[in-house]
């Protein structure tokens, strides 16, 4: 796991090339819709954007763009059929936006080896873009976690439902524990991490904060590094399918609790309202951002995109006064 720069550069300079990964613990939260819409919003701002369908098991990003299935895909690169990732980069109906379609024919590559994965990250990094967006598969498969950790910005999509929230927390915990495992090179430390992954572990390690304490006790230098790294990392939260004010304020409460319990940092970057235009557009093979640019989801996405670019968050005050 090489790049590991979940912690982005501290500035909000929007000229820098950034890889954003979008994940969620649970499927069907609207990851693909949000990813596609954010990409279109960036394009509208004149950015060069590449969308990558990294849901290696179940790819469908082309559908969200109203496109037909694409013949070239990530699997051609992963299997070595094409030499360069640029060969599977296809244009979309939207100038400025290119797509790398997901692997839909080879189930075996849903779990690529470590070296394939780092080759892929490197190849992605060499493409030409301002923003590269990775739509990750649902769940906590290792490759999903690794993509999430390797991105500059890690974006987590939830919907206001118990299972989605629960899985989001499981996802966050898995991501950070995986990171700590990668940093813990020594066998002794690695065993501590693995032990801690069991929720019923004897040491009572339940959160990121707990595990850092345990590791720091075993190896102060590793503890120091982890504290610094994890303090610099952050997860960006998006609440999708918002129907009520309570749904919307959920993001503030999640941030508050997760920061104090896990001891990690979370930004509440934005929310997207629920609206029938989303399925209307999907059924007509259109995009909300183009067909319904003044709808509430489209405006929410524009705001979310701005916040993500500039490292800003939803402000409680603006939420209250805008309504």
């Amino acid at each position, binding site marked *: 796991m090489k790049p590991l720069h979940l912690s982005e550069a501290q500035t909000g300079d929007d000229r820098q090339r950034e890889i954003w990964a979008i994940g969620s613990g649970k499927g069907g939260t609207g990851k693909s819709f949000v990813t596609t819409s954010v990409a279109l919003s960036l394009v509208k701002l004149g950015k060069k954007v590449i969308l990558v369908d990294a849901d290696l098991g179940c790819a469908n990003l082309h559908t969200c763009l109203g496109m037909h299935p694409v013949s070239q895909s990530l699997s051609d690169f992963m299997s070595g059929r094409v030499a360069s990732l640029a060969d599977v980069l296809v244009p979309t109906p939207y100038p400025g936006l290119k797509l790398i379609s997901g692997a839909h024919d080879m189930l075996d590559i849903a779990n690529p080896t470590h070296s394939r994965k780092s080759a892929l990250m490197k190849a992605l990094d060499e493409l030409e873009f301002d923003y590269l967006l990775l739509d990750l598969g649902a769940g906590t498969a290792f490759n999903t976690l690794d993509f999430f950790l390797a991105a500059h910005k890690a974006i987590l999509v939830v919907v206001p439902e118990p299972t989605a929230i629960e*899985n989001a*927390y499981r996802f966050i915990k898995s991501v950070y524990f995986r990171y700590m495992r990668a940093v813990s090179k020594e066998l002794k430390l690695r065993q501590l991490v693995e032990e801690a992954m069991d929720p*019923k572990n004897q040491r*009572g390690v339940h959160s990121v904060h707990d595990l850092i304490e345990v590791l720091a006790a075993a190896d102060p230098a590793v503890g120091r590094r982890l504290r610094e790294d994890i303090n610099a990392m952050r997860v960006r939260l998006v609440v999708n399918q918002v129907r009520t004010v309570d749904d919307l304020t*959920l993001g*503030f*409460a*999640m941030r508050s609790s997760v920061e104090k*319990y896990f001891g990690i940092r979370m930004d509440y970057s934005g929310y997207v309202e629920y609206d029938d235009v989303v399925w209307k557009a999907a059924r007509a093979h259109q995009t909300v951002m183009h067909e319904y640019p003044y709808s509430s989801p489209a405006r929410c996405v524009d705001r979310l995109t701005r916040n993500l670019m500039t490292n800003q968050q939803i402000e409680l005050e603006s939420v209250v006064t805008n309504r």
Partner: protein
Amino acid sequence: MSYYTSVNFYDLLEVDPRAGQADVHAAYLRQLDLVSGNSLATYGLFVGEDVISIRQRLEEALHVLSDPERRRAYDLRMFNHSFVSPDARADTHAARPAAPAAHADGREARAGAVTEVPAPEPAEADAAPKAPAQHPPHAPHVDLHHIDGPSLRAVRERRGLTLEAISARTKIAQYYLQYIEEERFARLPPVLYLRAYLKQYAQALGIDPERTVNEYLKRREAAQSHQV
């Protein structure tokens, strides 16, 4: 254990170090609500017994911050500086410092990640007129043989006061006042906080706060031991 047990009380409750009593109470309730088990925001977050120690810690924070003397001592120990203004030591929200100023620099004095939690509770409606908390001058005299939920309600109605009015005056959420009157004990906050509520409610009604607290809590205890 978790970060909950190591942050200072202000960061724990997410209040400004200069926040008045009403804000502290409201913040405590918000945080308590998040660990109550009914909160969507923390669904599946806490593992095992952690919730119990988090609740204890929240109670501890309220215990210290809701008492001017204890709070002062805590501030001095933690920050070498007391944030409680001399006036605020008297009691309750009457002497709350102007909110914006307190917000601006208090925030910097705080350690670690600072976040804002939605505050739909009455604490935000701070512009509401502040009636004196003491005995209303023209209140008709009421003889109380015993004090319980229904009798509190009877007093309130005899005084011509609505729950809304009491809520505006005391900054206690209206539904809590209603639960007090209806004796829905399970829905009421923990004793420490309930005590403060009852005291304020009694003052707003112009009846003896000590007696109200004692008698009401006895009723609550009796009802709970019945349940088991």
